[in-house]
């Protein structure tokens, strides 16, 4: 372990960390935005869910490297390529949670809302979605954490983030770089996860602590 390497490369380390955070968080958020309508539709029309789930599982089964390569003809060796691939993965993780969250809304609360004169849209927005928030955020947490770690494979198509430190450290037989990359990826994942726990707490003050 060569500690002095860290301060002398802090600029680069910081930039790579920022890029890694971007590649972890942005696809998860885009995934959330797409997963919400998809999950709502799947929760509402039962027939719609099994085919959706099958498609998502097939996408999830595609090895990430293969997916990056498959997207090259359209998007080249770019960030966009990685963002799209990771968005697809996060979609696979978040959609089932949206469905599970909506299905876990107590039937009595849903029925009471209808009986009090809530139309379907208002009921969805003000009763069902708020009650599904904890389960949806649980899915988002998995998506963000796995996105942060999956992003390193983007290095293989030349998109830089902390994964760069692994490849570079390997090529130069310089383990310090590998360790730093590993620790930072884990630290980044933990920080993002804790942030999401905080968001959930703010959004769900009614939950038992």
């Amino acid at each position, binding site marked *: 372990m060569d500690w002095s390497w860290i301060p002398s490369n802090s600029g680069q380390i910081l930039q790579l960390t920022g890029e890694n955070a971007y590649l972890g968080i942005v696809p998860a958020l885009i995934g959330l935005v797409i997963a919400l309508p998809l999950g709502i539709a799947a929760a509402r029309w039962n027939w719609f869910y099994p085919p959706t789930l099958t498609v998502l599982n097939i996408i999830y089964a595609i090895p990430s490297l293969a997916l990056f390569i498959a997207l090259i003809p359209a998007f080249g060796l770019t960030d966009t390529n990685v963002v799209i691939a990771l968005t697809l993965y996060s979609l696979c993780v978040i959609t089932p949670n949206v469905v599970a969250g909506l299905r876990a809304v107590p039937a009595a609360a849903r029925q*009471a809302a209808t*009986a*009090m004169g*809530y139309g379907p849209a208002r009921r969805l927005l003000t*009763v069902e979605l708020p*009650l599904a928030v904890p389960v949806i955020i649980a899915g988002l947490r998995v998506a963000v954490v796995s996105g942060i770690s999956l992003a390193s494979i983007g290095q293989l198509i030349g998109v830089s983030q902390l994964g760069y430190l692994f490849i570079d450290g390997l090529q130069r037989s310089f383990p310090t770089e590998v360790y730093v990359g590993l620790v930072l990826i884990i630290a980044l994942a933990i920080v993002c996860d804790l942030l999401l726990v905080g968001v959930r707490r703010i959004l769900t003050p009614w939950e038992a602590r």
Partner: protein
Amino acid sequence: MITFERVTKRYADGTVAVDALDLEVPAGKTMVLVGPSGCGKTTSLRMINRLVEPTEGRILVDGRDALRQDPVKLRRGIGYVIQQTGLFPHRTIEDNVATVPLLLGARRAAARGRARELLELVGLDPALGRRYPRQLSGGQQQRVGVARALAADPPVLLMDEPFSAVDPVVRASLQDELIRLQTELRKTVVLVTHDVEEAIKVGDQVALYRPHGTLAQVGEPEDLLGAPADDYVRDFVGFDRGIRRLSFFGTGDLDLDTSPVLAGDATVADAVSTGAPWVLVTADGGRPTGWVPRHRLDAAGSATALRDLAADHCEHTFTAGTDSLRAALDAAVLSPAGQAVAVDGAGKTAGVLGYEQIRAAIAARAADGARGKDR
């Protein structure tokens, strides 16, 4: 007023849950739907606010065909209370209660103020308003459910087994609360239960269902107990319906016996001269303190004051005029002397009542009841 006109509900799988139901719920009264599990009570109730759509027939709510109204508007004028409460876990108690007023466009501050009033109305501390539903007991949640249903002051209230998830003591107090509220608010209430006892207690009218969604008998609770239409009704209202029926017999004009009632400063000689097998001793100008049997009198000196003798308890009394004959009989059964002690509103002894007098009173009232029917 709510009117069912030959209403049938056939579910998609072919189950006939309600079969050509004709029923009239008078305005301002409590109609209880009671019957065995699966007989169609909940289905009947939910057709009123169109959570379930009838297959055939008409339902009129205050003279207007429910099926021709916008369901959302219809529902905002009908309170709905269910066993599982259906409170919104993510909203405070106050905001839960304020739900319908807010839907109807009330301002939040006004709606919350009204919510606190309603919490008081249903017997809850308004300070609970800031809590979330999971922080309340089951009985408290039930009360909140009732408050929420009343919030927009709807003329109609539908209740599906509202009290069956709580213990018997809480249930009894919730039932009393409902009866009290009804004397104040005079809503048209339809309440579903499978508990005959509850039906008889809270119902102005009771509709007893047979399996498969037809009615066996509709009438006042007394009618079901006193004049069951057939064996099905007789079995359903239960083997002790005779005793329960006594709840409807008053105690206002009973011939109370005052001869064995003596003040504590009376002597044993006074007591013996009554010839009664038991004497009731009173204090403070009439409050009953205990029963003394004849043999204990015989063993004491004739000049002894009664208050100095050991007495058996007389803690189970009934209030003449307010309590029913059932309470009088209960007091007699629990009394060591086999006689019920009647007190007035102030707790002073009005007299005592033996089994023979109770029997005579029951016979007289049953005969009155039967004549009442004939007329």
